[in-house]
């Protein structure tokens, strides 16, 4: 009885008795959700374009954030640093295509997946060598993002909106909309999906894998930079940032590996779901359930929709 009460009644009573906290939780969940969506977006882009699950996306996030901060520390103005990072990512995309992907055309997804793990190691080793491990603060103010917070007094309490979170949410949403349109409405978008289906056939109709891959990796780099800026602002810019990459996987499942809209919606479902669950139900299980709860949501989704909410259908035919 008591346990039923604790599960089915008490959490809602709590939500009702501190509505400000509940709203805050929703807002935090929303912000976390868009940020998860951003990481997931990086994965989706590359998966869509090559059928490759790009394991190195999280380390690209770290690399972007670290090099941005390091350029700035070298005395280069903030926005110029951003441009330098973009140039760097273009070069990286080109190198990755040249040295790795090109050699692995038409290989099994697992193999490409492994090669991105290899790439991850190379980047980790090189970046640690160059940047060392000292954490830095993200240069959000220098980049002109508003700081401080808005306070909304309500129900005797208050809800706080950090300006940086607001910016993050806005930019994430804009970015996702642009990319979604770009990839669904343009020729390149169609080309990308073709490549993901069948490398060889795509080659045979003249889609240049090389070009597509450079574009996509570069765009994924841009996404990584944005992700790095906002996650860096939440904590610190250090190698630990790559851990958050795992947060994106359940998002991918829910949204589908191939859907850009899915990334954001999946992100929101997970962001909101896990915050609410952790705060109101977590204590029943000794807290700290966030780490796997997202995966449980994802699994439940998978059992009903193996391709995710928006993912491409799994085609089973003989």
């Amino acid at each position, binding site marked *: 009885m008591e346990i039923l009460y604790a599960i089915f009644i008490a959490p809602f009573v709590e939500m009702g008795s501190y509505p400000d906290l509940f709203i805050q939780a929703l807002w935090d969940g929303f912000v976390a959700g868009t940020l998860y969506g951003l990481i997931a977006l990086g994965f989706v882009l590359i998966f869509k374009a090559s059928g490759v699950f790009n394991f190195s996306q999280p380390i690209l996030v770290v690399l972007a954030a670290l090099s941005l901060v390091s350029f700035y520390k070298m005395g280069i103005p903030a926005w110029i640093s951003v441009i330098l990072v973009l140039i760097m990512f273009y070069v990286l995309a080109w190198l990755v295509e040249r040295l790795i992907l090109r050699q692995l055309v038409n290989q099994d997804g697992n193999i490409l997946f492994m*090669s991105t793990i*290899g790439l*991850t190691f190379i980047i980790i080793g090189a970046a640690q060598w160059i940047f060392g491990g000292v954490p830095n603060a993200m240069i959000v103010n220098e980049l002109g993002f508003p700081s401080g917070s808005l306070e909304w007094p309500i129900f005797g309490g208050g809800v706080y909106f950090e300006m940086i979170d607001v910016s993050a949410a806005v930019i994430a949403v804009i970015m996702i909309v642009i990319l979604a349109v770009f990839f669904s409405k343009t020729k390149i978008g169609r080309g990308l999906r073709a490549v993901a289906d069948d490398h060889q056939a795509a080659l045979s109709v003249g889609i240049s894998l090389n070009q597509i891959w450079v574009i996509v990796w570069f765009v994924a780099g841009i996404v990584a930079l944005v992700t790095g800026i906002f996650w860096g602002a939440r904590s610190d810019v250090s190698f630990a940032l790559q851990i958050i990459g795992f947060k994106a996987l359940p998002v991918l499942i829910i949204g589908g590996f191939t859907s850009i809209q899915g990334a954001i919606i999946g992100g929101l479902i997970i962001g909101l779901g896990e915050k609410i669950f952790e705060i109101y139900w977590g204590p029943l299980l000794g807290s700290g359930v966030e780490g796997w709860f997202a995966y449980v949501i994802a699994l439940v989704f998978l059992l009903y929709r193996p391709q995710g909410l928006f993912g491409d259908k799994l085609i089973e035919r003989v």
Partner: protein
Amino acid sequence: MFYRETGQFKSKYKEELAAFPLAEDKVGIIILLVIAYVFIPIFGIPGLPFEFTMGAIMIPVFIFTITTLGLNILLGFAGQISLGTGAFMGVGAYSCYKIMTIFPDLNIIICVILSGLVTAVVGMIFGLPSLKIKGFYLIVATLAAQFFLEWAFIRVAWLYNYNDSGGIEGTNKEMFGLIVSGPQSDALTRYFIVLTLLVLLTWLASNVIRGRIGRSWMMIRDMDIAAELIGVRPLTAKLSAFAFSSFYIGISGALMVFFWLGAAEVESFDVSHSFTYLFMVIIGGLGSITGSYMGAALVWVIPVLIKEIGKTVFGFDAFIMENFSIIFLGVAIVVILIVEPHGLARLWQITKQKLRLWPFPY
């Protein structure tokens, strides 16, 4: 020239079904066994300290080979990708620990095998989603298992007997009057035990994969729909693969803690280890037993050697060597995949094939 199958005829199917139909292979295996059982225990690896050879190279490599065999059964033979290997090793380790404390007088080898069985059951449970979920989606499902188990290893204090440290430790265990496990055990004793288990498990695995059950796994791997239409029940095939694979992984987890590390906490089973084991499988070669050996050896030994050589020969400092070995491992992965996507085992096979044709190129 050196490697010919010509002239070796089999007159019975049974002979052809033997593990090593070619005489050269048979001889090779015997040589390897002699090296492992006689040469290394006596001489170690030339140029390396004996203790180090045992404790930091041979024993871990053998244990990881068992892990790799297990994962290879799942991924290479049954085509089900898993990133939960680390946690499944944890299941083996924690269950072995529990069994040991509940039945303190039980022979440790039996504990290890029982813990493999426990892991098999757990693996089956977490393998259930594979019936519906495929490919990269399955990765995420197995990650769910990984993170849930990690959480359980921390949260379920019963698993580590409410130790304040939150970890599990091995104690001295005797067998035939010899201390075989625990801090006072001799590295050489542990070496022989691990080696023998490895040989045994390899033999069992190679039997299973060549028989009916192994074939049903490969059928599911290569084309699950066709497999089903031919009469393979996906449920049985997939779950048996998860069970068998987890059995190996569980055993290796128990061995890792009680025959190598001595103690462990949850960190030893975290997701980064799952990745390492995945490397070993892929670098070695999917669906190859020899590959499991090569992969485990390469991925574990290379960084160790780089560090040792960097330190002793060139006097580089640890920081640089560590980064260098990370980069090196990354490059090695990429290069091997490019040269031969099917891993070292296939490379070896091709070399053998070329030897057969030698001196002609094709």
